[in-house]
């Protein structure tokens, strides 16, 4: 025997089925999905730290240049110049999960963002947009704070380094 809630929901569902045709129901559902911006494409969303992207209006600069603020501590080829972006790897490469993490100051809003410099691995060096900035970089004897380390050593696809991303994962202050 069902609960009163089950009975109520069943009555509502049967009533709705009597009054609304399938075509109009599907049409309304379509309108609902489009109006609320529910993503319809099967876009892969890999496990990643909580995204804390700054408002695009407060994200100045060109990600394909070394001077872009998120690149303050990067050492490598910019994935944005290699068929990827600041937060995604180019086709044919895979992000190394282990990486080094630093902070960069966003001049537009004055916050220091936590940036994860995940290397993209599995192909030979990209060779475009080499960028070597070393804010808060530490020597190799502190490997978890050093950008000279080949972080593809922690990758599942081998140690071939292709390029580096600069993903914002938090806001330090």
């Amino acid at each position: 025997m069902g609960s009163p809630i089950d009975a109520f929901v069943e009555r509502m569902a049967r009533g709705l089925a009597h009054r609304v045709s399938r075509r109009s129901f599907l049409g309304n559902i379509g309108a609902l999905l489009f109006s609320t911006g529910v993503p319809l494409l099967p876009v892969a969303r890999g496990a990643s730290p909580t995204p804390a992207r700054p408002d695009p209006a407060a994200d100045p600069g060109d990600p394909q240049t070394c001077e872009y603020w998120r690149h303050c501590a990067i050492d490598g080829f910019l994935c944005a110049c290699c068929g990827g972006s600041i937060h995604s790897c180019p086709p044919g490469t895979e992000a190394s999960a282990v990486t080094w993490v630093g902070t960069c100051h966003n001049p537009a809003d004055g916050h220091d963002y936590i940036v994860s410099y995940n290397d993209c691995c599995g192909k030979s060096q990209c060779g475009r947009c080499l960028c070597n900035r070393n804010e808060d970089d530490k020597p190799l004897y502190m490997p978890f704070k050093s950008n000279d380390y080949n972080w593809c050593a922690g990758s599942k696809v081998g140690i071939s380094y292709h390029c580096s991303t600069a993903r914002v994962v938090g806001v330090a202050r």
Partner: protein
Amino acid sequence: MKHGTFRAAVFAMAASAIAMQLRAAQPVELTPPVQANYMLNCMGCHLADGSGASGKVPSVRGSMLILSRSTAGRRYLVQVPGAAQSPLSDLELAQVLSWMVRNLSARAVPADFTDFTAAEVAEYRRSPLVNVRETRARLLAAAADRAAR
């Protein structure tokens, strides 16, 4: 449900979606300082969820809670090189270790779990740990023995 009611529901959902978009444009939310210290000093290897990289970086999701239940295990967690040699102060390291146990453990943390203290970290941190892997395996085996009894 009448069409008017349905349209009103659609309108309400659309309005809430727009409100969410507008809220996204508000000033950024700061990461809590303890979590930020984890991100900056540990997350690069242990990952956001503490799962690490199999065969290269140990997962803390199952082991930290077990190790934190004994004095020897707590000493190990403080002395492990990534912790002891981090640039964090004793208090900051104590807070990060406690945060990791509470937030990254796969199992529920018991109510009697004791947070790490700055004094505890100061006492253990200055003694270097040798044979990290052997020490970890021995401590986890001992904890499993205790649990089996």
